[in-house]
């Protein structure tokens, strides 16, 4: 890793865009080449992706509790207009 270290630091700032898929193609090639050779950077990229994934997945289940929504509609004087 020591040999790679500077290169890692240089490329690590682009991994967020890499994960987004918005990285420019040339940098992408360079990064992917580096990733194929550098275990540590691969771990960083994979765990970064996973971090985003688990936040996304846990979120989709959350809804406003029924009592909270009822109080909201009452506060807005809309409680009689629900379907």
């Amino acid at each position, binding site marked *: 890793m020591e040999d790679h270290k500077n290169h890692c630091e240089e490329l690590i700032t682009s991994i*967020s865009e890499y994960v987004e898929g918005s990285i420019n193609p040339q940098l992408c090639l360079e990064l992917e080449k580096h990733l194929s050779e550098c275990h540590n950077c691969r*771990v960083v990229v*994979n765990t970064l992706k996973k971090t985003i994934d688990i936040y996304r997945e*846990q979120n989709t289940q959350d809804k406003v509790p029924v009592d909270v*929504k009822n109080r*909201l509609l009452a506060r807005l004087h809309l409680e009689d207009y629900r379907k």
Partner: protein
Amino acid sequence: MIEPQVGPLNLEALQNGDPIEQTRFVELFSDRIYRLALKMLANSHDAEDVLQETFIKALNALPNFEGRSSLSTWLYRIAVNESLMLLRKKKPEASIQEDDFVDTENEDSFAAYQILDWCCLPENVFMNNETRAVLDQQIQKLPENLRAVFILRDIEGLSIRETAETLDLSETNVKTRLFRARLKLREELSTYFGEFIQENTNGRS
């Protein structure tokens, strides 16, 4: 962004104060606004306050809505501002966190990254209640300016452009903040899952 199963809103009726359309507006967006507030504030009572204030302000301001941004971006913006106002009211020192990352001097140094591959833990570990609580706590530890960006982009699934619009930031600024937020969270989760792996390995041996 994933839209709930409600037909498109009639903006004109909404702006004219039609209560049926206003109710649909609430039905369409209340889950998202509540979720945002809950993640921003980590307190269900405060989140409910923000939810109510957001819709009161939105319904009052709707006649002036010019459609320069989408309705959801516009509404998110009100909710983020309400959340930030409440945060500042509760702990004024929080505004210090609005700085330009002076607290993060060492963070971009590669030596600071934890290298632990916890991706292959069983899926149920990521979804259990303990992990969910940790995920929420870690968002709270983010400085506010990073927290809002992460919630809008990575949790609520807004695009970079929509996130920038909502928060009045440049897209470059959103990307920078997003990068920092994601890295911070990755570090914290690496610590947490590292301890988890260690505990479970010890348990077995």
